[in-house]
């Protein structure tokens, strides 16, 4: 596998991740924008409306028909938070031309289709059409509201909202329902133009060959756009939280309580400096060898899941668990006790080595998945060097127990969010 990075235009890069093992090729457009309350909802709606129709395919049903004809080409859109930036993705993946029964070029057609969707949307007089806009707004609103139905996700989102109250990272990734409601055909068109003019853009190709002429075509398209004030994704603000730590307890009609704890970590989001935190978080609450699994689940039988995960770009560590409301305090106490054990370095060599092996083993599987590779490079935007998964595995192997202890000692509890059944409260 090799990775080639080329500059296509001002703030536009092309990344060819050459990998011969797949039957499929993936082309991904990644747009990076600052997270801003006033723009977040319109930006987040763009990948979805753009991949639902275009000038050439005004009807989404015909577009889906065409994708089937391209041997089940897959068109995906997403809007995520990547530190203090919004990452807006539009991908197409298609099986390689050699599988086409009548010899047509599937990759060329898929590439042209994706370019058409992004650069030639179905608009009139500087506005998206009402029918398309209303359809996508409704789906976006239902999606935002729908997070309430998945209690584990809901609890985690509420924790982040509380922990980053008044801060950039506290902005929900797709905005709020009222932000979406306020979008008009004109405002969305303006957001689309603004995106093409200012976003930092990276075009990924993962597969056996670079589609002929793709990078040239992307260069030409952006050369026609006035690229002004292009976003500079230098890095996110780490350890920036709401001033006051919070304890928030909310009630809901649920059977099982949810406990979410947010910790601040003193670290930089950079790959060269934050890796000890990745290992610390894994020893604390990653695999089945971790402190939380072995103690809160296996020894104390308090829960089915109790895990820690680390958002390195933001210096944020989150512990999540599903527990009976009456056991919440007990679980919380034990989670903090386990953190103290890690801080004191009282974890075993077995736990330390298991964690290093598990992380490295998993990193070395990334090369076997188009999506994993695409996602891996998509979030590597704040780093000066584009490390591959195996580069990081090599770095992880050099981490010492003392590095982990030092990382743990920068971890401090900030906010506790609990969702409990109504009758118990």
């Amino acid at each position, binding site marked *: 596998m090799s990775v080639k990075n080329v500059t296509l235009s001002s703030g536009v890069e092309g990344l060819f991740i050459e990998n011969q093992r797949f*039957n499929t090729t993936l082309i991904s457009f990644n747009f990076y924008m600052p997270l801003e309350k006033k723009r977040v909802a319109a930006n987040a709606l763009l990948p979805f409306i753009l991949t639902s129709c275009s000038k050439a395919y005004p009807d989404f049903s015909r577009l889906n028909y065409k994708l089937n004809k391209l041997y089940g080409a897959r068109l995906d859109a997403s809007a995520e938070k990547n530190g203090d930036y919004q990452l807006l993705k539009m991908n197409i993946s298609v099986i390689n031309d050699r599988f086409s029964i009548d010899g047509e070029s599937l990759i060329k057609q898929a590439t042209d289709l994706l370019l058409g969707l992004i650069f030639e949307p179905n608009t009139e007089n500087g506005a998206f059409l009402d029918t398309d806009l209303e359809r996508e707004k409704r789906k976006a609103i239902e999606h935002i509201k729908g997070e309430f139905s998945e209690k584990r996700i809901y609890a985690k989102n509420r924790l982040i909202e509380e922990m980053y109250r008044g801060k950039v990272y506290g902005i929900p990734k797709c905005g709020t329902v009222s932000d979406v409601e306020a979008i008009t055909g004109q405002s969305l068109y303006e957001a689309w133009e603004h995106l093409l003019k200012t976003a930092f853009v990276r075009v990924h190709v993962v597969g056996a060959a670079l589609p002929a002429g793709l990078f040239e075509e992307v260069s030409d398209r952006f050369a026609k756009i006035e690229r002004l004030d292009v976003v500079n994704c230098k890095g996110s603000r780490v350890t920036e939280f709401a001033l006051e730590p919070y304890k928030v307890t909310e009630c809901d009609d649920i059977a099982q309580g949810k406990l979410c704890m947010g910790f601040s970590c003193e670290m930089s989001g950079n790959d060269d400096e934050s890796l000890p935190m990745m290992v610390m978080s894994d020893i604390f609450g990653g695999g089945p060898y971790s402190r939380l699994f072995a103690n809160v689940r296996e020894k104390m039988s308090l829960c089915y899941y109790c895990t820690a995960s680390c958002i390195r770009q933001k210096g944020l560590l989150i512990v999540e668990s599903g527990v009976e409301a009456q056991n919440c305090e007990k679980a919380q106490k034990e989670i903090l006790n386990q953190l103290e054990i890690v801080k004191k370095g009282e974890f075993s060599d077995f736990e330390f080595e298991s964690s290093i092996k598990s992380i490295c083993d998993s990193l070395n*599987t990334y090369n076997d998945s188009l999506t994993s590779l695409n996602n891996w490079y998509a979030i590597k935007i704040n780093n000066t060097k584009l490390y591959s998964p195996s580069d990081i595995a090599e770095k992880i192997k050099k981490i010492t127990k003392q590095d982990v202890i030092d990382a743990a000692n920068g971890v401090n509890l900030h906010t506790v969010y609990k969702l409990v059944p109504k009758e118990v409260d």
Partner: protein
Amino acid sequence: MKREIFHSDIGESYIKATLSSGLKVYILEKPQYNSSYAIFGTKYGSIDTCFSVNGDKTRVPEGIAHFLEHKLFESEDGDAFAKYAKTGAYCNAFTSFDRTCYLFSCSDKFYENLDILLSFVQSPYFTKETVEKEQGIIGQEIRMYDDNPGWRVMFNMLKGMYHKHPVRIDIAGTVESIAQIDDQLLYKCYNTFYNPSNMFICIAGNVDAERVLKQIKDSVKPKDSIEIERINEDEPEEVVKPYVSQKLAVAQPIFCLGYKEKIETPERTLKEKVTTALLIEILAGDASPLYKKLITEGLINDEFSSEYFNGNGYAAVIFEGESNDPERVAEEIKAEVERVKAEGIDKKLFSAIRCGMYGNAIRMFDSVDGIAMQFVDCAVCDTGLFDEIKYLRSVTVDDVYRRLLKLDGEKTVLSVIKPMEEA
């Protein structure tokens, strides 16, 4: 040992071997990959609640197959998680209606990992104390699913559809049913269903098939082959009730509409499954007229999906999603089924969908876990890995139309999860 090699014109080939113990082994080599994926499984799931071996009939508590899956990770010489921690592999297990699978994925030390898998699945160790400890953990797993609207809407639908068939019960059982499980019952189930003649091993990735086969042959202990009789009471053709609903803390209603099918032979054939998958895409896939109508009228969103749900003694075509008007969605789906029955299938749409499914079947070979999972279907249903691709080249629009005629609008169940505030 009986061994066969299968080739296909998409450049893949695999080995299927049947050991003298009756164990089936499937291996697909991917030398250019870093990783490998292995599954050791048994044809034993939540629906096997009543069975007989040599005339000895046993009824076991609901959820015992899943409970056994949890407990098998513990052996007398330590638990499997700790052994995998030493190699760095990812390991897991799952129990469904008709199968239990133990798996690992790794990019290093494959043969060491395979040894761990072979050893712990063949070394049951249950005691009163370890069983009691697990009741707390699984109790929390069950409670977690109690709050999961996607899970509840499906099981409520199955309870509305089946009178007798155990597919109607939750895979993990209930807090009450798992309280009846003890070590002796676990051993009884283990000794019945974890016989190599009822089991399979499925592997894809960077492995040497010859070495793998030898390792398995040396490790899998031969046992007397047994005849398991799965006892299912007769299931009426009618549904229990056409409508079920429950209130949960959800933002908008969630629905699941199922068409109950008449069962003439216990298992569905590969042709039936693929034809039905085509039919479902033609009826309600994202290129269908129905999907366009439902999206345009604001009745569904991207959560809408459909599947052919089937296994030993049960089969249903299912449509599910979120909607502010689930009853209307159900009416529209039923009306569309009748319209297509009357007007016939759009041949262009059929051809596009078939092309899409063909591409997806080829794409599946990019993923070692996808291949291993597909092997599990091959083992449970006795099919070949390339059968779907072959059949997709020959299936006709008439085959799909004939399949459509079997959907019976009189035998449907609509299950709805409503938000709490709704009456």
